[in-house]
């Protein structure tokens, strides 16, 4: 299996066939994580730079684990150690990175489009590990893998994504990926956190929590960024939890076989009550495990022995 692309900047423009290839590859690589020796030599001699301009221990750890299980060499560069703080531009930094001749840059950045800028200037594989409020494609893929494992398929499913849609790169990548695969996606959240023209992205927008929950096969709750409170996007965490949180009351109205997901880390009691997060519906830990598998698949397909 192979992909006919060098970069993964987002799920926009990625075909259903490509997504299936990535998910199937992740599925077949997943078992490596359960072997006594969790390592294969696939990426021996390859160097992967983890360039995180914005802190994210979880995503970086997941990518690093993925690279190591495939025997790739990794270098980590974070905002504080990079020269970005010294007035160097992103392109300067990228060219410096390039001089170390890596095979792939995994990049997290607070600005939307930053990996696109990098891709225009340097000729190696770039994986977007989250850019501003734009996309987080590997998260979208791991969510799809988790759903596919739970439901057996992705087409025809109803997926509700609830919370801060406007600022969520996860919501965008989930939406794009899932609709490409034939799912129907509904957004719900405070009106201040639903982007203008959300419908033009291909999502339905629910008018109340009940509507968002009722028919859903999958509910994905998004993390509340506490600093949004100071932006006056919603009045209090208390009201947020009451109106936009997922608790037992909502779960009773949901379908029997509904599954619940969250990109983590959860604000317990805000977007999700502990009973829901730890209940039988929850796929949150599967998401974490699938994260490593999906990232192994991406590295394998983009810079592995059979990569284009």
């Amino acid at each position, binding site marked *: 299996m192979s992909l006919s692309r060098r970069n993964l900047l987002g799920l*926009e423009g990625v075909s259903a066939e490509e997504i299936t290839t990535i998910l199937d590859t992740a599925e077949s690589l997943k078992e490596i994580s359960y072997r006594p020796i969790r390592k294969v030599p696939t990426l021996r001699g390859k160097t992967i730079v983890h360039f995180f301009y914005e802190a994210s221990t979880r995503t970086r750890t997941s990518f690093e684990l993925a690279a190591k299980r495939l025997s790739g060499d990794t270098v980590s560069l974070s905002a504080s150690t990079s020269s970005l703080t010294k007035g160097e*531009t*992103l*392109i300067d930094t990228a060219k410096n990175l390039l001089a170390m001749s890596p095979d792939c840059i995994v990049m997290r*950045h607070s*600005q*939307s*489009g*930053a990996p*696109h*800028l990098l891709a225009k200037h340097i000729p190696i594989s770039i994986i977007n590990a989250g*850019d*501003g*409020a*734009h*996309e987080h494609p590997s998260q979208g893929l791991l969510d799809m893998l988790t759903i596919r494992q739970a439901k057996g398929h992705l087409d025809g499913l109803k997926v509700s994504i609830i919370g801060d849609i406007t600022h969520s*790169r996860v919501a*965008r990548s989930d939406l794009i990926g899932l609709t490409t695969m034939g799912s129907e996606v509904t957004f719900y959240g405070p009106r201040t956190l639903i*982007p*203008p*023209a*959300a419908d*033009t*992205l291909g999502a339905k927008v629910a008018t109340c929590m009940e509507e968002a929950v009722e028919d859903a096969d999958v509910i994905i709750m998004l993390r509340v960024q506490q600093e949004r409170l100071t932006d006056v996007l919603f009045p209090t965490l208390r009201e947020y939890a009451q109106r936009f949180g997922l608790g037992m009351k909502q779960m009773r109205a949901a379908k029997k076989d509904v599954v619940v997901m969250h990109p983590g880390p959860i604000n317990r009691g805000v977007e999700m009550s502990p009973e829901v997060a730890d209940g039988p519906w929850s796929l949150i830990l599967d998401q974490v495990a699938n994260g490593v598998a999906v990232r192994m698949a991406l590295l394998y397909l983009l810079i592995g022995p059979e990569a284009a």
Partner: protein
Amino acid sequence: MSAPRPILLKGGRLLCPASGLDKKGDLLLAKGRVEAVGSKIDPPKSAKVIDCSGKVVAPGFIDLHVHLREPGQEYKETIASGTAAAAAGGFTAVCCMPNTDPVNDSAAVTEQILERAAKAGSARVYPVGAITPGLAGKALTQMAELKDAGCVAVSDDGHPVSDSRLLRRAMEYASGFDIPVVCHSEEKSLSAGGAMHEGPTSTRLGLPGIPAQAEVIAVERDLALAGLTGARVHICHISCAGSVEALRRAKEAGWAVSGETAPHYLALCDEDVGEYDTHRKMNPPLRSAADREAVRRGLAEGIIDAVATDHAPHSVLEKELEFGLAAFGVTGLETALGIILELVNEGLMSLSQAIERLTASPARILGLPGGSLAKGGPADVCVFDPAAPWVVEPEAMLSMSKNTAFAGRTLPGRAVLTIRGGKVTHQAKE
């Protein structure tokens, strides 16, 4: 300086919307003035005769809104390079906004600009003074002194006066000296943090949006204050339908108001930001396709009086960045005519109407000389070929900065000869 040789422009299509002239003929320029206009003029002995057959001979264009970056940011543009770019685009006069460093909020800065402009010489430079010292929006500048020093208007372009009471006072005070107030209309509390027009494209790209209402609310306020004070008020860079509508109503009310738009709002829309193209990032931002249509119609109908470029040069240091961090603004002097000719070719307006928006209309708005080919007026002329397509190549431009929104676009025609005060300031290479 010796007086330039007389120039006889022969056999062109003389097009002067100000005087209603549109016919084939000759134009004689001497002693910095238009000496004669006629169907056939015999050249005086010393005259330089230039064949203009197949070309349009129009008044030199007047740009109400440019940023020359001098003093303070000479690495982006200087008065010399900016006026050279103006001449290349067919402009013989430009009004430069006061957001320089230092800000043009005193006679000393105005005089410095005029001195350098006199040396550079490629275009007439009309400084616009600040409304408030340092563009800080706190107090009034000495507008009467600014006018005496040579400012043709006042504006806090880029930093809209948010205090409505202060803006009212500014309009009242300025109108006492017949100084036009030029408004950058933007409600900052709505636009703050935004990087592009708020709509489907900003949502897709995950970029913070600037709703059209951030402009409309401010335009409505600024026009309402024009009605209250009776001041001459000019609205800058109109980009959306709501502003056109507001201006239409204010004009119907009989207020002394006018408005301009820029070529990029006529030719592009928010979708053209594409994959984070920072050369499509400006303020106000490129709006929706429907807004673009409304602005085009507003210009054709004359509700929007003029096309100004809002020429805003930025170096790669400000543009080769993440979209959210890149500076707002694009260059425009060298591509404006081409974009206007596209509109003419599309049948939106006649060539005469189009040229009026670049000549007579801006001259009238700020009471500037020129904008006409009338006998006795300044010998400011643009000769252009409306049917000589060319491809926009940033590297070939005369502006020091290459941040054009139209790189690679084929434009239908361009200026081939620009004359300011009877002297050639630009001649296209054949």
